[in-house]
């Protein structure tokens, strides 16, 4: 059943999702929104990973590297979200803002 859906559908979805995430992380001013964009991009990659695993691998049962990799990415995303939110909170506490355009202490 699932095989009836061609691979490019998944890839198109993943690409669209990635682009949305990319736009969000680049264009949004709110640091939380930026983090959310990053999450989106990670998940788009996860879709890609799983799709390629399902369609690309000769023996999906024996070789499960695709989903394992996806699992790793999820773990990483969780950790990243945790750290990212912690940083946002810390910045907010010291500077009273989460606007990334104002957080430019490393400016030239």
């Amino acid at each position, binding site marked *: 059943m699932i095989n009836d859906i061609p691979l490019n559908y998944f890839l198109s979805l993943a690409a669209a999702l990635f682009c949305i995430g990319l736009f969000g992380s*680049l*264009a949004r001013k709110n640091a939380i929104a930026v983090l959310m964009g990053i999450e989106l991009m990670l998940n788009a990659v996860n879709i890609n990973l799983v799709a390629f695993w399902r369609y690309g691998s000769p023996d999906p049962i024996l070789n499960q590297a695709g989903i394992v990799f996806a699992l790793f990415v999820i773990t990483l995303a969780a950790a990243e979200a945790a750290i990212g939110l912690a940083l946002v909170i810390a910045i907010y506490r010291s500077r009273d803002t989460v606007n*990334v355009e104002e*957080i*430019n202490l*490393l*400016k*030239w």
Partner: protein
Amino acid sequence: MVQNFTLLIPLFPLLAFAIIALLTRSRNRLSAWIAILGVILALALSLGVFLEALAEGAELAVNPFYGAPIVWYPYGTATVNFGWLVDPMGSAMLFMVPTVCLMIFIYSVAYMRHSHTGKDGHTIHEDDPRYARFFALISLFTGSMLLLVISSNLLQFFIAWEIMGFCSYALIGFWSFRGLKEHHIDDAQVGRARAASIKAFLTTRVGDVLLMTGMILLFITVGTLDFTQMFSPDGLNNMLLGEPPIGALQWPTLIALLIFGGTVAKSAQFPLHIWLPDAMEGPTPVSALIHAATMVSAGIFLVIRMYPLFVFDSQTGGFSMQTVALIGGFTAIFAAVLGLAQNDIKRVLAFSTVSQLGYMLAALGIGAFVAGSFHLITHAFFKALLFLAAGAVIHAVGTNDMLKMGGLWRKMPITFLTFLIGALALMGIFPFAGFWSKDEILLEALRLGFFSESGAAPLVQFVFISLATAAFITALYTGRQLFLTFFGKPRDQHFYDHAHESPVTIWVPLAILALFTTVIGFWNTPFAPAFTGYVGEAGLVGLPVPFEHHAFDQLALISIFVSLGIAFGGLFVAYFIYGFRPVGAGQPDPLERLGIIYRALASKFWLDELYGYKINLDGTARAGLLVRFVGLLSRFSYWFDRTIVDGLVNLVGWFGRIMARLWGWFDKHVIDAIVNGSGSVTGEIAGWWRTMQTGNVQNYALIAVAGAMAFAILFLLRSFT
């Protein structure tokens, strides 16, 4: 074995000098006696050596008394030693020098006491203010002369030679200090003494430099300065090994001439004779010392000592002996002529010394070694006698000017008698010393010049004619001196009244010297030539060939009459001019009628003005043309140094400064600009680039994404093609 103590001979006077200078300076009489004791001890030892040498006889020339035990300093494989060397002529000198010196010392004891009239009219006798210093200096003088006579090598000889140079300087200028007005010494005389001492020192220095150059060349070519080694056959032949220095001039000729240069200055030969007449400014005993026993004899003795070199040179074709003969012969007549027009009693004697030294050198130059040597010995005695007698006259009268004397024989008969003996000896009148030695020289010149088997020699003929003429003029000026001083009427009553016979300590040395003057000639008469047998028979150190000696023959007899005739002729002319009609008070010298010739003679042919150093009567001194030319030259050199040399140096410095400034500018504006420019360019570029660092994380991410997309596009494009 007295000969082993030869080295002690000069020690006694030198010791006396040290004792007087260091300890007894303030005790006049004691100092004098110490000096005399030093000479007496030296004389005793010298006589011991002399007698021992006489006992050796002619053997002595082959095996001289020689020893060089004191090592002075080593060089290479050999050493320079202090030692002694006594050959026959050296021993004769050992007899002559201390004897004459002792007489001069004894004489000085009284001479250096001046008498003057005090305020209350009484005559006051007073020692010279520097009485002890005088005796110290003449002791040093005598000691160095004795050291010179016994020297075993040329360096030792040269040291003694130089000490004598200093002593002559110090003694000629002995009265070059003020505060002696009551001793007849005024400011003018002080000035003259000062200038004369400097003149003597500088003139002899010219010769010393030549001698030292000769000595250095001798050492280079021969390799030793020891007389016995130097004059061994190998030693002299070493000189011919090297390349001749200047064209045809051989090493022996050059060296002999340089060494002879030392003699020319020390023995006051033309053209360096100018210092000797002015040296008369010293006290009379000093004049006697310089003229008889020490200074000028040292110059002759140098030629005698180096005679093997001269002979060797003439055997190898050199002309050094001819030069010696020429200069000696010329000086003999030149100085004699100048002696004619001097009014200073001592200056006449000074010129006669120059002339007689010319005799000796002429004799040595033509090969009459024995005659020349013998004249050196006899001349020392009669010239010392003449000077001391003249000193006694000066002391008694109080002036040097012969035109203010006259008739003095009545006042001081003993002095007159001794002076007469000395004067007769100087003229060469039988039987006094000068007759025998001068006759010997004339005979040798006559024989070698006109009757030689090897044909006539024009140079020797010139020497003979010159010497014979000089003998005539010598008799003339000595006669003039005698008549002006002792005969006729007193020309200045004040001085005449002041005159008195000398005290016993003055006339006793005169008498002893007169005795020697009378008898010493018989040491070498043509009939019994003992001196010839002793000094000449076996040759000398390094020249063990007997000098040619002729038995008494017709020629010798003729020569005796010729020389006597010449002497009496001169004396007669002198009597005709000065004795027959004595010069009255205030009258000019009859010679002044000669006009320009007299003025030329009186001013010594203007040689002082020409190149020397003219000392005026008032004590001022003026450099001669040559000296002034040298002065101009040095001033020009100074100018050249200041303007050209310094200018060049400054120019180089200025150029360096300009270049340095240029480089500084270049460094500052080019090198630094490059360095700073690279820095500031980097800074500028960095300034643009850093604006990239917006600090906005999203910008960075955008760039990263853009980069990744660019790579992706690139990758895609590549995979399509």
